[in-house]
């Protein structure tokens, strides 16, 4: 995550709304994306990610609000005149053209000579790892290869922004992981701003400089991946990204510090940044990530806080084991993930254990 954004935002959306007849698909989007950023739009199906991307691309006109790219108002500017290019979810590779003709498609109005264009096409294919594939028929490519062609075809035009709508969702798991890494490298190399739409939270965390989580046409939170994961600003975001234990708690202010009394665990003082959406004295909810909790195995000691519990469920993942531990006084069992280190047995259901917790990993979710 080492981008160095320049001061002015490259893309700026102000209170953008989109109505499809009665349906309110975008409900006041405010967004600034910096030059060179890898930005992800993350959200469940139907939340408006594609609509937002297509609005930026120029395929949908906002019902109200403004969009500027590189300081230029985009109202009335058609898709073919915007400094954006898009990689479609289906890749939209033209099946009647060769790979090279697909990649060179956008150069038709380019004044360069034929030879120069051919060189640009070859370079572009080289960049996505398809050097020498130019003469192949496009309809005979594999899914991963199509995706690379789609990338080369968009990047050859050196857009200011590359828009990607779920570009990896059609690939199998292995291929997807490879392409995730390749996309990050590619983005660093070309320095173009990427906006990626995905409903895969892991993908967003791995790839992005910044993530916007969307629900029902609104941006619920916008942050870098670490903040998004460690300091979600609502229960909904917390549960959408990774696994989060939610526990009832009571908050109070004591001598300028926020103190929460968490059901089943106990009292602890927290820092203001552990309550990203603020905190009101009284009943509230706190979240704890499974990996910030641990089980005290026989023979281990700790000076951290402890709570007694019983193992309710064991899910073995090879490198990790997930335990659901029931704590007296808490309705939902706590999920705890443990690395399977040497000498650590896998506990059985019913085992009585001590849960180790730390108030520094609490996050207050008042919404």
């Amino acid at each position, binding site marked *: 995550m080492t981008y160095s954004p320049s001061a002015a935002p490259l893309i700026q959306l102000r209170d953008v709304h989109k109505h499809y007849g009665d349906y309110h698909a975008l409900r006041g989007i405010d967004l600034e994306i910096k030059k060179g950023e890898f930005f992800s739009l993350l959200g469940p199906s139907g939340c408006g990610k594609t609509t937002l991307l297509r609005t930026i691309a120029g395929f949908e006109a906002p019902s109200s609000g403004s969009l500027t790219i590189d300081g230029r108002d985009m109202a009335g500017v058609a898709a073919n005149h915007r400094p954006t290019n898009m990689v479609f979810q289906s890749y*939209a590779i*033209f099946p009647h053209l060769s790979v090279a003709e697909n990649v060179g*498609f956008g150069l038709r109005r380019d004044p360069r000579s034929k030879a120069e264009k051919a060189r640009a096409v070859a370079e572009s294919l080289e960049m996505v790892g398809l050097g020498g594939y130019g003469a192949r028929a496009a*309809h005979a490519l594999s899914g991963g290869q199509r995706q690379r062609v789609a990338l080369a075809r968009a990047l050859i035009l050196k857009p200011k922004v590359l828009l990607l709508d779920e570009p990896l969702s059609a690939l199998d798991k292995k291929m997807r992981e490879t392409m995730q890494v390749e996309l990050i490298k590619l983005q660093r190399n070309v320095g173009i701003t990427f906006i990626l739409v995905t409903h895969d939270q892991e993908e967003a965390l791995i790839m992005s400089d910044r993530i916007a989580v969307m629900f029902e046409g609104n941006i619920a939170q916008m942050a870098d991946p670490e903040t998004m994961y460690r300091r979600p600003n609502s229960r909904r975001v917390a549960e959408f990204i990774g696994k989060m234990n939610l526990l009832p708690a009571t908050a109070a202010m004591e001598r300028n510090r926020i103190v929460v009394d968490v059901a089943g665990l106990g009292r602890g003082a927290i820092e203001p940044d552990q309550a990203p959406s603020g905190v009101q004295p009284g009943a509230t909810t706190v979240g704890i990530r499974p990996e910030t909790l641990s089980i005290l195995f026989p023979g281990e000691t700790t000076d951290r806080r402890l709570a007694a519990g019983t193992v309710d469920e064991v899910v073995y993942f090879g490198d990790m084991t997930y335990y659901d531990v029931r704590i007296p006084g808490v309705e939902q069992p706590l999920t705890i993930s443990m690395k399977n280190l040497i000498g650590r047995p896998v506990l059985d259901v019913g085992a009585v254990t001590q849960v180790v917790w730390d108030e520094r990993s609490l996050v207050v979710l008042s919404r």
Partner: protein
Amino acid sequence: MKKGWGLRAYAVIYLAFLYAPILLLPLFAFNDAAIIAFPLSGFSTRWFEQLWTTQALHDALQNSLIIATVTAVLATTLGVCAARAGTLANFPGKSGALGFIMLPLVLPEIVIAVALLIVVRQVFDLELSNLTVIAAHTVICIPFSIAILNGAFQNLDPSFEEAAMDLGETRWGAFRLVILPLVFPGIVSSLLICFIISLDDFVIAQFLTGANPTMPVYIYGLTRFVDALPLIMALGTILVTISITLLVIAEYFRRRGVARAGLKDSGGFL
């Protein structure tokens, strides 16, 4: 292995009913006798020679070819517009509009013919001519054209047009460079089918033709003369050969279109 013999027998009988009469055409066309009856008397090409020298027939043929060509181009052009709107665009009342366009497919031809005759003669008071036949043939061909082209357009990824525009093309450029080449086999197929329909039509041409008859109308005229029957057989043989050839070519192009879009075949004419 005997499963489904009933269906198979049905298919054989069906095909026999359909094609046996047509097989009689060449039989009598090459028969050296002026009456249509068994037993056959001997091989002869004199009926074809006689066709070759009949001027009225040549005029009718020329007429038919002109009408069929213009009809095919008109109906296919309109069919492309309708199929493009029907599959790639979304607009209010779309399904209703498409339903109405397909209606002539199920209306009796004679109803269309009479209705069009009334419109041409009573409403607009126009002279009957090749133009009126072309207009009427275009009307009955459009549904076929749309049916063929819908198949071609539905095979397309809806993102193709946007992808081309995203890469800097105008809407027309996207259509010309991506959509048109991909539906081209469908267009050829539609042109050929419309051509055949127009060429073969009798009912509408009979009502709307002007001073110059089309081929089928001319043939009908011939049937009043008993001694012209072998001539009709010969002519019919030629027409059937042409029709089947065109149909095969049309189907070839349709299949090529499906293959080109990299898709599985789902029905067709042949």
